[in-house]
């Protein structure tokens, strides 16, 4: 029979509302986290980062929250705009064997409706 593909979770919001995208990470030793935005047909672009010695960091219209107790990361977008429609990835930095590697989550699609 037909195989079922993996589907991205989708968050649908109205233009002007606030968006919250969540991410669970795997390694309690990870010390650095990034949110990337990927628009259709483009590579991922950096949005905001946070180190493990912080629990909150703000940028322009975006805020990242880090809860190390439950290994959870969230991205908040204020006053969401149609241009925010994209796939959002969280990434954690794993340092092992002397090398830094970014490990990515599966992504969340944000759909902004007028």
């Amino acid at each position, binding site marked *: 029979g037909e195989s079922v593909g993996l589907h*991205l979770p989708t968050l649908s919001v109205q233009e002007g509302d606030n968006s919250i995208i969540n991410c669970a990470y795997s390694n309690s030793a990870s010390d650095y986290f990034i949110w990337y935005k990927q628009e259709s047909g483009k590579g991922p672009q950096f949005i905001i980062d946070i180190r493990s010695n912080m629990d909150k960091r703000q940028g322009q219209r975006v805020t990242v929250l880090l809860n190390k107790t439950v290994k959870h990361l969230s991205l908040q977008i204020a006053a969401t705009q149609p241009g925010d429609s994209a796939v959002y*990835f969280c990434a954690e930095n794993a*340092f092992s064997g002397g090398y830094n590697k*970014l*490990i990515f*989550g599966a992504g969340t699609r944000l759909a902004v409706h007028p």
Partner: protein
Amino acid sequence: DVKVTQSSRYLVKRTGEKVFLECVQDMDHENMFWYRQDPGLGLRLIYFSYDVKMKEKGDIPEGYSVSREKKERFSLILESASTNQTSMYLCASSLWTGGAGTEAFFGQGTRLTVV
């Protein structure tokens, strides 16, 4: 601005062909990475390199090899392309920071179709 350039946006290759994906960065970054991206699976690391002529396996290296002869260039090689290697391939680069994480800068991606 940091620029990571992948040589092709779209490629169509036949099963069994040897395929080269090229990536060049202009920021003198030590680290370079190749990821593949498939729907619902996020970005999975194939190989990375932290210096010229150095390479390390990522999470899914089977069926791939890499070459880094110059600091600015990192090539991904599919020795004998198969249909399950149809995917989006993303190259990235970052500074060597000696342990502290730092952002990676991505190219625009190469969508490879193996028929």
